[in-house]
Protein backbone atom coordinates (compact mmCIF):
# COMPACT_ATOMS: atom_id res chain seq x y z
CA UNK A 1 0.00 0.00 0.00
CA UNK A 2 1.15 3.54 -0.71
CA UNK A 3 2.60 5.24 2.40
CA UNK A 4 0.42 8.34 2.22
CA UNK A 5 -2.80 6.37 1.70
CA UNK A 6 -1.87 4.09 4.56
CA UNK A 7 -1.07 7.08 6.76
CA UNK A 8 -4.39 8.73 5.97
CA UNK A 9 -6.27 5.58 6.89
CA UNK A 10 -4.60 5.48 10.33
CA UNK A 11 -5.72 8.97 11.35
CA UNK A 12 -9.09 8.05 12.90
CA UNK A 13 -7.40 5.50 15.10
CA UNK A 14 -4.61 7.93 16.07
CA UNK A 15 -7.20 10.54 17.00
CA UNK A 16 -9.15 8.07 19.11
CA UNK A 17 -6.08 6.94 21.01
CA UNK A 18 -4.78 10.48 21.52
CA UNK A 19 -8.17 11.49 22.84
CA UNK A 20 -8.24 8.60 25.27
CA UNK A 21 -4.75 9.52 26.47
CA UNK A 22 -5.27 13.26 26.83
CA UNK A 23 -9.04 13.59 27.41
CA UNK A 24 -9.03 16.90 25.59
CA UNK A 25 -10.05 17.23 21.95
CA UNK A 26 -7.79 20.10 20.95
CA UNK A 27 -4.71 18.83 22.70
CA UNK A 28 -5.35 15.36 21.28
CA UNK A 29 -5.52 16.68 17.71
CA UNK A 30 -2.37 18.74 18.33
CA UNK A 31 -0.63 15.53 19.31
CA UNK A 32 -1.95 13.76 16.20
CA UNK A 33 -0.73 16.63 14.04
CA UNK A 34 2.75 16.50 15.57
CA UNK A 35 2.75 12.77 15.07
CA UNK A 36 1.73 13.00 11.40
CA UNK A 37 4.28 15.72 10.68
CA UNK A 38 7.01 13.67 12.24
CA UNK A 39 5.91 10.56 10.37
CA UNK A 40 5.99 12.47 7.08
CA UNK A 41 9.46 13.85 7.71
CA UNK A 42 10.73 10.42 8.71
CA UNK A 43 8.93 8.27 6.21
CA UNK A 44 12.26 7.04 4.86
CA UNK A 45 12.84 5.40 8.26
CA UNK A 46 9.70 3.32 7.96
CA UNK A 47 10.36 -0.15 6.66
CA UNK A 48 7.70 -0.91 4.12
CA UNK A 49 5.96 -4.25 4.39
CA UNK A 50 5.57 -3.89 8.15
CA UNK A 51 2.42 -2.54 9.71
CA UNK A 52 2.34 1.25 9.77
CA UNK A 53 -0.01 1.75 12.71
CA UNK A 54 2.32 0.50 15.49
CA UNK A 55 5.10 2.64 14.04
CA UNK A 56 2.82 5.68 14.28
CA UNK A 57 1.80 4.85 17.84
CA UNK A 58 5.45 4.63 18.72
CA UNK A 59 6.07 8.11 17.33
CA UNK A 60 3.03 9.39 19.18
CA UNK A 61 4.23 7.82 22.40
CA UNK A 62 7.61 9.46 22.19
CA UNK A 63 6.00 12.84 21.55
CA UNK A 64 3.55 12.29 24.38
CA UNK A 65 6.31 11.21 26.77
CA UNK A 66 8.13 14.48 26.00
CA UNK A 67 4.95 16.43 26.76
CA UNK A 68 4.42 14.61 30.02
CA UNK A 69 8.01 15.30 31.04
CA UNK A 70 7.59 18.97 30.19
CA UNK A 71 4.38 19.22 32.19
CA UNK A 72 5.40 17.24 35.22
CA UNK A 73 5.96 20.37 37.26
CA UNK A 74 2.42 21.55 36.62
CA UNK A 75 -0.57 19.87 38.25
CA UNK A 76 -2.43 17.61 35.85
CA UNK A 77 -5.83 18.86 34.92
CA UNK A 78 -7.87 16.18 33.29
CA UNK A 79 -11.32 17.06 32.08
CA UNK A 80 -13.42 14.02 31.31
CA UNK A 81 -15.00 14.63 27.97
CA UNK A 82 -17.04 12.63 25.54
CA UNK A 83 -19.87 12.02 27.94
CA UNK A 84 -22.98 14.04 27.32
CA UNK A 85 -24.79 15.49 30.33
CA UNK A 86 -28.32 14.95 29.04
CA UNK A 87 -30.52 12.85 31.30
CA UNK A 88 -31.02 9.26 30.29
CA UNK A 89 -33.38 6.57 31.41
CA UNK A 90 -33.35 2.83 31.87
CA UNK A 91 -30.73 0.85 30.07
CA UNK A 92 -29.23 3.95 28.48
CA UNK A 93 -28.66 5.38 31.90
CA UNK A 94 -27.10 2.21 33.24
CA UNK A 95 -24.72 2.23 30.30
CA UNK A 96 -24.01 5.90 30.79
CA UNK A 97 -23.07 5.30 34.41
CA UNK A 98 -20.89 2.35 33.47
CA UNK A 99 -19.08 4.38 30.80
CA UNK A 100 -18.60 7.27 33.13
CA UNK A 101 -17.20 4.95 35.81
CA UNK A 102 -14.85 3.38 33.31
CA UNK A 103 -13.60 6.78 32.15
CA UNK A 104 -12.92 7.75 35.77
CA UNK A 105 -11.24 4.44 36.54
CA UNK A 106 -8.95 4.68 33.51
CA UNK A 107 -7.92 8.13 34.67
CA UNK A 108 -6.76 6.65 37.94
CA UNK A 109 -4.59 3.93 36.44
CA UNK A 110 -0.84 4.42 36.57
CA UNK A 111 0.26 5.87 33.24
CA UNK A 112 2.08 2.76 32.00
CA UNK A 113 -0.83 0.46 32.74
CA UNK A 114 -3.29 2.86 31.16
CA UNK A 115 -1.34 3.01 27.90
CA UNK A 116 -1.09 -0.78 27.65
CA UNK A 117 -4.78 -1.27 28.40
CA UNK A 118 -5.75 1.37 25.81
CA UNK A 119 -3.48 0.02 23.08
CA UNK A 120 -4.86 -3.48 23.60
CA UNK A 121 -8.51 -2.83 24.41
CA UNK A 122 -9.14 0.33 22.39
CA UNK A 123 -6.77 -0.06 19.46
CA UNK A 124 -6.58 -3.84 19.25
CA UNK A 125 -2.81 -4.01 18.92
CA UNK A 126 -1.16 -7.37 19.44
CA UNK A 127 0.97 -7.79 22.57
CA UNK A 128 4.10 -7.86 20.42
CA UNK A 129 3.08 -4.60 18.77
CA UNK A 130 2.46 -2.97 22.14
CA UNK A 131 5.89 -4.14 23.27
CA UNK A 132 7.45 -2.52 20.20
CA UNK A 133 5.46 0.69 20.68
CA UNK A 134 6.50 1.01 24.32
CA UNK A 135 9.98 -0.39 23.83
CA UNK A 136 9.64 -3.00 26.57
CA UNK A 137 9.66 -6.84 26.55
CA UNK A 138 6.37 -8.64 25.90
CA UNK A 139 6.50 -10.01 29.45
CA UNK A 140 6.36 -6.46 30.78
CA UNK A 141 3.37 -5.74 28.58
CA UNK A 142 1.56 -8.79 29.94
CA UNK A 143 2.22 -7.91 33.56
CA UNK A 144 1.11 -4.29 33.03
CA UNK A 145 -2.00 -5.59 31.31
CA UNK A 146 -2.80 -7.90 34.22
CA UNK A 147 -2.25 -5.22 36.80
CA UNK A 148 -4.17 -2.66 34.76
CA UNK A 149 -7.15 -4.90 34.15
CA UNK A 150 -7.37 -6.08 37.71
CA UNK A 151 -7.07 -2.55 38.98
CA UNK A 152 -9.90 -1.48 36.69
CA UNK A 153 -12.02 -4.24 38.20
CA UNK A 154 -11.49 -2.78 41.63
CA UNK A 155 -12.06 0.80 40.49
CA UNK A 156 -15.13 0.23 38.33
CA UNK A 157 -17.57 -2.50 39.11
CA UNK A 158 -18.50 -4.61 36.11
CA UNK A 159 -21.87 -6.09 35.34
CA UNK A 160 -20.44 -9.52 35.59
CA UNK A 161 -20.96 -9.85 39.29
CA UNK A 162 -19.93 -8.45 42.63
CA UNK A 163 -16.33 -7.42 42.99
CA UNK A 164 -14.17 -9.95 44.63
CA UNK A 165 -12.26 -8.75 47.58
CA UNK A 166 -8.87 -10.29 47.25
CA UNK A 167 -6.93 -11.20 50.33
CA UNK A 168 -3.41 -9.99 50.04
Amino acid sequence: VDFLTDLESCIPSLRRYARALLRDGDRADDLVQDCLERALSRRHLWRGGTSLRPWLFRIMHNLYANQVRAQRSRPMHQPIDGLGAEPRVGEAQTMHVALSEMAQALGQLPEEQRRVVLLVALEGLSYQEVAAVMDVPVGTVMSRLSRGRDRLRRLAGGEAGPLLRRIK
Partner: protein
Amino acid sequence: VSLAAGPIDEAELHAYVDGRLAADRRAAVAEWLETHPEERRRIADWQRQNELIGRLWAEIAEEPVPERLRVERLRRHGLRRRLAAVAAALLLLAAGASAGWLARGASPRAADPVTAIAGAGLEAHRMFVAERRHAVEVPREEEQHLVAWLSNRLERPLRAPDLGAFGLQLLGGRLLPMPGGEPAAQLMYEDPDGARFTLFIARGEGRDPAFRILEAEGVSAFYWLDRDTAYALIGTAPRERLMAICQAVYAQLESGPG
Protein backbone atom coordinates in the same frame (compact mmCIF):
# COMPACT_ATOMS: atom_id res chain seq x y z
CA VAL B 1 -2.85 -14.38 40.79
CA SER B 2 -0.50 -17.04 39.59
CA LEU B 3 -1.83 -19.74 37.35
CA ALA B 4 1.52 -21.32 36.83
CA ALA B 5 0.30 -24.59 38.34
CA GLY B 6 -2.57 -24.99 35.90
CA PRO B 7 -2.51 -25.82 32.22
CA ILE B 8 -3.66 -22.32 31.31
CA ASP B 9 -1.37 -19.36 31.90
CA GLU B 10 -2.21 -15.73 32.53
CA ALA B 11 -1.12 -14.61 29.05
CA GLU B 12 -3.62 -17.04 27.55
CA LEU B 13 -6.41 -15.55 29.60
CA HIS B 14 -5.67 -12.14 28.11
CA ALA B 15 -5.39 -13.62 24.63
CA TYR B 16 -8.75 -15.31 25.23
CA VAL B 17 -10.37 -11.99 26.13
CA ASP B 18 -8.73 -10.19 23.21
CA GLY B 19 -9.66 -12.85 20.66
CA ARG B 20 -6.06 -13.79 19.98
CA LEU B 21 -6.18 -17.53 20.65
CA ALA B 22 -6.26 -20.35 18.15
CA ALA B 23 -9.50 -22.34 18.17
CA ASP B 24 -8.11 -25.31 20.14
CA ARG B 25 -6.59 -23.17 22.90
CA ARG B 26 -9.73 -21.12 22.99
CA ALA B 27 -11.76 -24.23 23.65
CA ALA B 28 -9.28 -25.35 26.30
CA VAL B 29 -9.51 -22.03 28.14
CA ALA B 30 -13.31 -22.05 27.95
CA GLU B 31 -13.38 -25.53 29.40
CA TRP B 32 -10.94 -24.61 32.16
CA LEU B 33 -13.02 -21.59 33.09
CA GLU B 34 -16.00 -23.90 33.66
CA THR B 35 -14.34 -25.19 36.79
CA HIS B 36 -12.75 -21.92 37.92
CA PRO B 37 -15.58 -19.55 38.82
CA GLU B 38 -13.35 -16.86 40.29
CA GLU B 39 -11.29 -16.62 37.13
CA ARG B 40 -14.46 -16.79 35.10
CA ARG B 41 -15.73 -13.65 36.83
CA ARG B 42 -12.39 -12.00 36.29
CA ILE B 43 -12.47 -12.81 32.58
CA ALA B 44 -16.05 -11.59 32.29
CA ASP B 45 -15.04 -8.28 33.88
CA TRP B 46 -12.13 -7.92 31.48
CA GLN B 47 -14.46 -8.53 28.56
CA ARG B 48 -16.84 -5.95 29.92
CA GLN B 49 -13.92 -3.50 30.22
CA ASN B 50 -13.00 -4.04 26.58
CA GLU B 51 -16.55 -3.33 25.55
CA LEU B 52 -16.82 -0.14 27.60
CA ILE B 53 -13.42 1.15 26.54
CA GLY B 54 -14.33 0.50 22.93
CA ARG B 55 -17.55 2.46 23.33
CA LEU B 56 -16.05 5.38 25.20
CA TRP B 57 -14.16 6.80 22.23
CA ALA B 58 -15.87 5.00 19.37
CA GLU B 59 -17.37 8.17 17.93
CA ILE B 60 -13.99 9.90 17.65
CA ALA B 61 -12.90 7.35 15.08
CA GLU B 62 -16.20 7.71 13.23
CA GLU B 63 -16.23 11.48 12.82
CA PRO B 64 -14.65 13.09 9.77
CA VAL B 65 -10.97 13.97 10.09
CA PRO B 66 -10.48 17.72 10.69
CA GLU B 67 -9.00 19.62 7.77
CA ARG B 68 -5.82 20.47 9.63
CA LEU B 69 -4.98 16.78 9.95
CA ARG B 70 -5.32 15.90 6.28
CA VAL B 71 -2.13 14.26 5.07
CA GLU B 72 -2.06 16.20 1.81
CA ARG B 73 -2.27 19.50 3.66
CA LEU B 74 0.42 18.58 6.20
CA ARG B 75 2.63 17.37 3.40
CA ARG B 76 2.37 20.66 1.50
CA HIS B 77 3.04 22.60 4.69
CA GLY B 78 6.02 20.46 5.55
CA LEU B 79 7.44 20.91 2.07
CA ARG B 80 7.00 24.67 2.26
CA ARG B 81 8.73 24.75 5.63
CA ARG B 82 11.63 22.63 4.39
CA LEU B 83 12.00 24.79 1.30
CA ALA B 84 12.15 27.87 3.50
CA ALA B 85 14.87 26.15 5.52
CA VAL B 86 16.70 25.28 2.31
CA ALA B 87 16.48 28.86 1.09
CA ALA B 88 17.83 30.09 4.42
CA ALA B 89 20.67 27.58 4.31
CA LEU B 90 21.58 28.58 0.76
CA LEU B 91 21.53 32.28 1.63
CA LEU B 92 23.73 31.67 4.61
CA LEU B 93 26.01 29.64 2.42
CA ALA B 94 26.25 32.34 -0.22
CA ALA B 95 26.95 34.95 2.46
CA GLY B 96 29.59 32.72 4.04
CA ALA B 97 31.09 31.94 0.67
CA SER B 98 31.47 35.59 -0.24
CA ALA B 99 33.25 36.08 3.07
CA GLY B 100 35.76 33.49 2.00
CA TRP B 101 34.36 30.42 3.73
CA LEU B 102 34.49 27.95 0.94
CA ALA B 103 36.02 24.70 -0.08
CA ARG B 104 38.14 25.68 -3.01
CA GLY B 105 39.18 23.37 -5.78
CA ALA B 106 38.24 19.77 -6.30
CA SER B 107 41.11 18.68 -4.14
CA PRO B 108 40.66 15.10 -2.99
CA ARG B 109 42.52 15.65 0.27
CA ALA B 110 40.54 14.66 3.34
CA ALA B 111 37.30 15.18 1.46
CA ASP B 112 34.23 13.53 2.92
CA PRO B 113 32.39 11.11 0.62
CA VAL B 114 29.75 13.62 -0.42
CA THR B 115 32.36 16.26 -1.26
CA ALA B 116 34.25 13.62 -3.21
CA ILE B 117 31.08 12.99 -5.21
CA ALA B 118 30.73 16.73 -5.89
CA GLY B 119 34.37 16.78 -7.00
CA ALA B 120 33.76 13.90 -9.39
CA GLY B 121 30.69 15.74 -10.64
CA LEU B 122 32.77 18.85 -11.34
CA GLU B 123 35.27 16.85 -13.34
CA ALA B 124 32.55 15.13 -15.32
CA HIS B 125 30.92 18.49 -15.92
CA ARG B 126 34.11 19.97 -17.37
CA MET B 127 34.65 16.89 -19.47
CA PHE B 128 31.24 16.74 -21.12
CA VAL B 129 29.83 20.28 -21.35
CA ALA B 130 32.53 21.07 -23.89
CA GLU B 131 31.25 18.31 -26.18
CA ARG B 132 29.00 19.46 -28.97
CA ARG B 133 28.02 16.22 -30.62
CA HIS B 134 28.58 13.78 -27.76
CA ALA B 135 27.52 15.79 -24.74
CA VAL B 136 25.06 13.11 -23.71
CA GLU B 137 24.84 9.39 -24.11
CA VAL B 138 21.06 9.17 -24.17
CA PRO B 139 19.24 12.19 -25.62
CA ARG B 140 16.12 13.86 -24.16
CA GLU B 141 13.95 12.24 -26.84
CA GLU B 142 14.41 9.06 -24.84
CA GLU B 143 13.94 10.68 -21.43
CA GLN B 144 11.76 7.90 -20.08
CA HIS B 145 14.28 5.27 -21.01
CA LEU B 146 17.13 7.41 -19.69
CA VAL B 147 15.52 7.89 -16.28
CA ALA B 148 14.53 4.23 -15.98
CA TRP B 149 18.01 3.12 -16.97
CA LEU B 150 19.82 5.44 -14.55
CA SER B 151 17.37 4.60 -11.74
CA ASN B 152 18.04 0.97 -12.35
CA ARG B 153 21.82 1.34 -12.28
CA LEU B 154 21.83 3.56 -9.19
CA GLU B 155 19.20 1.36 -7.55
CA ARG B 156 16.92 4.23 -6.54
CA PRO B 157 14.08 6.12 -8.20
CA LEU B 158 15.54 9.11 -10.02
CA ARG B 159 13.80 11.81 -11.98
CA ALA B 160 14.92 14.52 -14.35
CA PRO B 161 13.67 17.77 -12.77
CA ASP B 162 11.79 20.12 -15.06
CA LEU B 163 13.83 23.34 -15.10
CA GLY B 164 11.87 25.06 -17.85
CA ALA B 165 11.11 27.90 -15.41
CA PHE B 166 14.80 28.86 -15.68
CA GLY B 167 14.90 28.50 -19.44
CA LEU B 168 16.78 25.24 -19.03
CA GLN B 169 16.02 22.37 -21.32
CA LEU B 170 17.08 18.81 -20.70
CA LEU B 171 19.65 17.63 -23.25
CA GLY B 172 19.92 14.10 -21.93
CA GLY B 173 22.20 12.17 -19.66
CA ARG B 174 24.78 9.51 -19.16
CA LEU B 175 26.07 6.89 -16.78
CA LEU B 176 29.56 7.41 -15.34
CA PRO B 177 31.89 5.51 -13.07
CA MET B 178 32.96 7.14 -9.81
CA PRO B 179 36.65 6.79 -8.90
CA GLY B 180 35.83 3.77 -6.72
CA GLY B 181 33.77 2.14 -9.46
CA GLU B 182 30.35 3.13 -8.10
CA PRO B 183 27.88 4.23 -10.76
CA ALA B 184 26.91 7.89 -11.01
CA ALA B 185 24.40 9.67 -13.24
CA GLN B 186 24.81 12.96 -15.04
CA LEU B 187 21.84 14.89 -16.43
CA MET B 188 22.68 17.84 -18.68
CA TYR B 189 20.58 20.97 -19.23
CA GLU B 190 21.11 23.89 -21.56
CA ASP B 191 19.74 27.44 -21.53
CA PRO B 192 18.91 29.50 -24.65
CA ASP B 193 22.37 31.09 -24.53
CA GLY B 194 23.98 27.70 -24.70
CA ALA B 195 25.13 27.71 -21.06
CA ARG B 196 25.10 24.18 -19.70
CA PHE B 197 24.32 22.87 -16.26
CA THR B 198 24.64 19.35 -15.02
CA LEU B 199 22.93 17.52 -12.18
CA PHE B 200 25.23 14.83 -10.87
CA ILE B 201 23.71 12.03 -8.78
CA ALA B 202 25.35 9.19 -6.90
CA ARG B 203 24.74 6.96 -3.93
CA GLY B 204 25.78 8.80 -0.79
CA GLU B 205 26.03 8.15 2.89
CA GLY B 206 26.04 10.26 5.98
CA ARG B 207 23.63 12.39 7.91
CA ASP B 208 24.65 15.87 6.88
CA PRO B 209 21.73 17.66 5.26
CA ALA B 210 23.65 20.93 4.76
CA PHE B 211 24.12 22.52 1.37
CA ARG B 212 27.70 23.15 0.42
CA ILE B 213 29.61 24.71 -2.43
CA LEU B 214 32.66 23.44 -4.21
CA GLU B 215 34.29 25.71 -6.77
CA ALA B 216 37.06 25.16 -9.25
CA GLU B 217 38.16 27.31 -12.18
CA GLY B 218 34.98 29.35 -12.29
CA VAL B 219 32.66 26.33 -12.12
CA SER B 220 30.50 25.93 -9.02
CA ALA B 221 28.95 22.82 -7.59
CA PHE B 222 26.14 23.20 -5.07
CA TYR B 223 25.84 19.84 -3.43
CA TRP B 224 23.81 18.11 -0.75
CA LEU B 225 22.83 14.75 0.58
CA ASP B 226 19.21 13.66 0.59
CA ARG B 227 18.83 10.47 2.61
CA ASP B 228 21.01 7.99 0.74
CA THR B 229 21.51 10.00 -2.43
CA ALA B 230 24.05 12.74 -3.11
CA TYR B 231 23.23 15.50 -5.58
CA ALA B 232 25.43 18.18 -7.11
CA LEU B 233 24.15 20.95 -9.32
CA ILE B 234 27.02 22.24 -11.37
CA GLY B 235 27.41 25.21 -13.66
CA THR B 236 28.97 28.55 -14.38
CA ALA B 237 26.49 31.21 -13.32
CA PRO B 238 25.91 33.79 -10.62
CA ARG B 239 25.42 32.19 -7.25
CA GLU B 240 21.84 33.49 -6.95
CA ARG B 241 20.87 31.72 -10.15
CA LEU B 242 22.49 28.47 -9.09
CA MET B 243 20.77 28.78 -5.74
CA ALA B 244 17.38 29.28 -7.32
CA ILE B 245 17.86 26.29 -9.62
CA CYS B 246 19.02 24.26 -6.66
CA GLN B 247 15.85 25.06 -4.75
CA ALA B 248 13.71 24.03 -7.69
CA VAL B 249 15.58 20.75 -8.03
CA TYR B 250 15.24 20.09 -4.32
CA ALA B 251 11.53 20.94 -4.33
CA GLN B 252 10.80 18.66 -7.26
CA LEU B 253 12.74 15.76 -5.81
CA GLU B 254 10.94 16.21 -2.48
CA SER B 255 7.46 16.42 -3.88
CA GLY B 256 8.04 13.49 -6.16
CA PRO B 257 6.31 10.14 -5.87
CA GLY B 258 7.57 7.23 -3.82
